[in-house]
């Protein structure tokens, strides 16, 4: 029996995903553009379809300053505090 040291770091507890709503009716939906080229095309179409097929209370559009970095904390807090459903999308 030989003993070695684990080179990996203990990762935080796996996070659970948030509960999914059964319906989008009456919900605030945020569409997050990560700033990749043409992401807005995709999100425009998603917004169209949402308005056509569901009755959200509001659709909010947000945008990350750059796709290359995680969303800034202020943006995350705005989203957490102001939305029921988040859809993040990119196109390339």
């Amino acid at each position, binding site marked *: *029996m*030989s003993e070695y040291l*684990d*080179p990996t*770091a203990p990762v935080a507890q796996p996070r659970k995903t948030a509960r999914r709503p059964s319906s989008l009716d009456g919900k605030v939906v945020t569409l997050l553009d990560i700033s990749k*080229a043409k992401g807005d095309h995709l999100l425009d179409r998603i917004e169209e379809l949402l308005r056509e097929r569901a009755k959200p209370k509001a659709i909010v559009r947000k945008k990350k300053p750059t796709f*290359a*970095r995680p969303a800034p904390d202020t943006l995350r807090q705005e989203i957490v505090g102001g939305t029921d459903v988040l859809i993040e999308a990119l196109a390339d």
Partner: protein
Amino acid sequence: MTDEGIVAVVKRDCPTCTLVAPVLEDLVVRGVVSTIYREDEEDGLEASWRLGIETVPTLMRGDRRIVGWSRVQWEELTGVSGLGEGLPDYRPGCGSRTVEPGLTDELAVRFSGSKLHSRRVELAELEDEAEAFFDRGWTDGLPVVAPTEARVLRMLGGTTRDPEEVVAGVAPDLVECTVEKVAVNAVMAGCRPEYLPVVLAAVEAVCDEVFDLHGVSATTNAPAPLVIVNGPLRATLDVNCGAGVFGSGWRANATIGRALRLVCVNVGGARPGEVSMSTLAHPGRYTYCIGEREEASPWESLAVEHGFAPGDSTVAVLAADAPLGVYDARSRTPEDLLATLAASLAVVSHHKMTHWGDTLLVLSPEHVTILGDAGWSKADVRRWLWGRLQRPVRELLPGRDGGEGLPEHVLRKFADPAHDSTPIPKFRSPDNIKIVVAGGTAGRFSAIVPGWTFSKGSALVFRPIRTPQSGGSA
């Protein structure tokens, strides 16, 4: 232990220790010597190891140590005269058990192994270490040196930093990475203990927010952190700055870059094909580390240019593509040579990509001599290149000579882009063209190392290398 007054360390099979045994017993009886540590007993051996004893007998008070028997010195230290009547004036000591070959590592594990906090992984005798580590996903695809406690403790000897000290949170998992965890990965990469401070500095540098390791590790683009070493440590550690600088064959370059990669994968979680989704990547993701050949440069080094003293040893990290070789054997004037280099710099990322950030120009000694002999400074070179690397809006339209081009929000600023001759720079500023000298003395070859440095992207980051010799918490 240094508060104990005068203590002695001895072992049984040392003739000098036997010779002075009655003297020591006498000093204990007189209350002059508080403790005799005997290396033949476990607690005596541990005390000797902790005191860093190399020779027995050692008589010591605080930092003052006398090795072997010397009547004059023993009398001076103890303040007792007439010691060891009938003994010779002087006898050399013997080697301490703590420095016996094979025992040193074992003692390190026995007496300080418990300070290591990493989970222990047990492998059965018949398991192959290299296979077992590969199977767990802890390698870069090449075999690694198995990180035993003894090897990790020896690696930690390269720094005086506490193994528990958090070096940084490593993206993308943002897990806190300790000095110990860097040491484990440095062992696996094949580092010598004296390289550890360089690896620690490189880990700190890539975890600086400016470097954007999250993006570097997760992008579909190809960057790898290039580590550039400056300062006197290059010579001490034999970091290659000369012939074959980007190639294989130098342990320091090969293993420092590799250790950084293993930290990114094992601690940061940047596993290729899982989180790290680069479409192509490049071989620099195995290892990517060079030294600047400061001695062949007519200019101040990259580090000095960025505010460090010539005596400082530093790392700089650049999120970088693979080097692009530039061959020019016939230029003999700065203008000719720089025209060649500019043409290759123009195609970095894409020939119509503009407002690019930090990119590295690696000038070979023969090329830089052309510039230095003509009296050009680094700033002159940068300004010339930056001025040359401008193209009119009309040549940067998307869908002409390739689909890429100026983004729509920029094009909207011009009434008639198709005929507009406003110059747009390839690089945001002359300062984004970083210059080092490296490579063999023969050969008119230089290289461009494109950065992954678009607007709001990554940039060059420096960190000083803190060695035990450079003082402070190295």
